[in-house]
């Protein structure tokens, strides 16, 4: 009998990894997020879906504690978010780049010192899985290779919350598949929570447990994906309904 406790849901839904309540923020007098509220249960893989300019990146910055909301609250594992909680989450920035002058190996060595929860074992495993070459200079990597290196950096840590902002932007198909496989493998033990912000729905549709739809700074819907499918809708059709 497959063990019940390795199921990410059912009995664990009362543990909330991320809770946003009435979050509001404006940057340089321009309102970005308006009364945003949603939950992310522990062990789930939640997709934050929305077009460009919806406020996804700003929301990420709030979750990582780089920005503070003008009003409302954001709690990670029951305590307020902030820059001091960066050790509890692993963040992949949108269109981010790693220092181009370092080789992948140099960066990974430095990363193992920078991140307190670095796991060398995982790093080695993921290096194989994602096909990262240590001797290559980061500035000389293709977009797909760099994306895989960045994901490697994120996943080699043992932080319980992993936030990926557009992990697939500009990445070739094979790299995308490898990244998706690596993300899934990480999820399997049910202890890590993933939040993926994207507008690449088709590729990730089959991974989501939950989707949060955001547009123009407002939450337009929170759906359990299984429920959607039971009612004959796909994630894509739901997105289409909401945004067109």
């Amino acid at each position: 009998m497959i063990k019940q406790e390795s199921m990410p849901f059912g009995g664990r839904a009362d543990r909330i990894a991320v809770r946003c309540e009435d979050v509001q923020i404006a940057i340089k007098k321009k309102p970005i997020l308006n009364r945003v509220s949603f939950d992310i249960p522990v062990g789930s893989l939640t997709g934050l879906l929305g077009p460009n300019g919806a406020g996804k990146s700003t929301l990420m910055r709030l979750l990582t504690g780089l920005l503070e909301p003008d009003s409302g609250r954001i709690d990670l594992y029951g305590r307020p978010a902030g820059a001091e909680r960066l050790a509890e989450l692993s963040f992949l920035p949108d269109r981010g780049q790693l220092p181009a002058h370092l080789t992948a190996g140099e960066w990974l060595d430095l990363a193992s010192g920078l991140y307190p929860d670095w796991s060398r074992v995982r790093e080695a495993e993921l290096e194989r899985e994602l096909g990262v070459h240590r001797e290559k200079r980061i500035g000389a990597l293709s977009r797909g290779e760099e994306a895989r290196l960045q994901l490697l950096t994120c996943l080699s840590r043992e932080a319980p919350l992993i936030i990926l902002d557009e992990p697939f932007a500009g990445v070739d198909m094979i790299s995308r598949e490898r990244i998706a496989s690596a993300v899934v493998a990480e999820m399997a033990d049910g202890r890590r929570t993933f939040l993926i912000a994207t507008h690449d729905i088709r590729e990730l549709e089959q991974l989501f447990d939950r989707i949060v739809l955001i547009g123009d700074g407002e939450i337009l819907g929170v759906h359990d994906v299984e429920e959607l499918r039971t009612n004959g809708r796909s994630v894509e059709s739901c997105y289409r309904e909401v945004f067109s």
Partner: protein
Amino acid sequence: MKRARDSLFQLEWSFHRHLLPLDARGRLLWVGVPILLIVASLIFLDGTTTARTVFAIGVSLSALLALFLGTKPVLTLWENPYKDWWLTIPVKREELMRAKLNAAIRFQAYASLAIWATCAASSLIRLASGSLDSDTFSAGSFLLDAFAYLVFCIPVTVLFVCAGFSFVGMYGGRRVWLNIPFVLVYVVLFSVLPAIGDHSLRLDRWLGGDLVFAYSLAGVLLAATVYRSTLRFTARYGPKDLASYRMGGANAGKKDALTGRGSRTQVKPRRAGFASVYALEWSRYRYFLSLLSVRIIVAALFAAMIAGGFFASNSHDTFLDVFHAILLPICIAPSLILVILNQHEANKKRMAWWLCLPYDRRALLLSRLLASWGVALRILATLVGAFLTGVIARVLVIGLPYSIERTDVYESAYTVFFYFVAGLVMSSVVLAQPYSFRRPLFSWIYGPISSAMYLIPALIENKLLPEASSDLGIGTGRWLALLAIAVLVVPLGIFSLRIGARWAHLYLLNTQDAAGRRRHLEADGKIIGK
């Protein structure tokens, strides 16, 4: 925690690696520049400049460099896609800043040391060649001065790197106004440098080794406080401002976002042809000049110029000196802008799009050249205007202790024309850079010329306009000489423009990414290095 700190410092230090004398290029910098400076000192300095003064100049240069080195890492941070990774490293914000600041300080320490060594070497060489007054020279005081200035480097390094670094906190809110004193520090240092050289005898007392030790002591105490405050200040404001900044200027004000009107970056669509290409280039500067921080800096310079005009017209010579001092950087600026701009555009992948505009490439390059001159002239006019306003104010309020002769006007006009022509030609020559991608040998000619050209105006000015002539005025002979030179070098400029146009597409093959890839592949043995 200790491990994180070390790793963070290693990370920040790696950013400075490319400037260290670890490879041929770095060695060229660390050996070439001192040699250049020593040669310059042999040409420009005479017996009135003592070894002590040279050390003082060296320290001022260090300070300026430190200021710049402190600012540079934070200046490039705003648009750098690495920013988000850096900000989410799980350490205290102060630790982030500390590592960056310390790396800059360490590098500047090396640079200061190099400058100090260059000063010492220069004085010794000048002594040997007889250019330094050997009567007033004493080995004892030289050694004392040398040691004192070496020690003085420490607080100077820390203080000015911190000052430059604090720029990162000056982006948002009321702190933007801090840009004014910030710029003033730059301006003051810039003016101090030549001033020390000119007034060396008068200042000699204040520059002596014993006093410098005292300065060092005070400096160290000050530096410790400034260091701590800089860390606290930048840690408190920097990361938040950096986080809320949206790259590529997407942070439009509310009005712009909602209505699209009121944006100063809009180009009127009615122009066509060359005018529209020019308008495109110009819009870049327009946007830049419309940024709040830039406007504040320009306003600060404007105010400084008025004050400068007011006080400098104190003496005839100072008046002309300041005038020249304004002209020089402005005329060099377009060349600098063009070099950096073209490479930057290629890196950002806009170059391909630009080259595909349906216009003759020469026209495109010309528009870029003209636009950069347009902005340079505009700023020049503003600053000169401010300067003259200050002078006029003085005339009205206090009156001048001397009278302005016709010859002064002629000389000023001459200088203006000279710098203008030189600058114009230089910026055209600079456009020929892409040819060096085709024929690497060309870069051996091109490189030294473009570096040396920053010195050429000063060199020529010193040789063609010796002090004596300021009494005699500029004769027609001078004007004819200028005309003759112009006739000779202008074709050079045009020729360079054509070469640049012909080979501009080579920029596309030589972006930073491509260069990096090639370097890697060469190292792998996959390409035989050329």
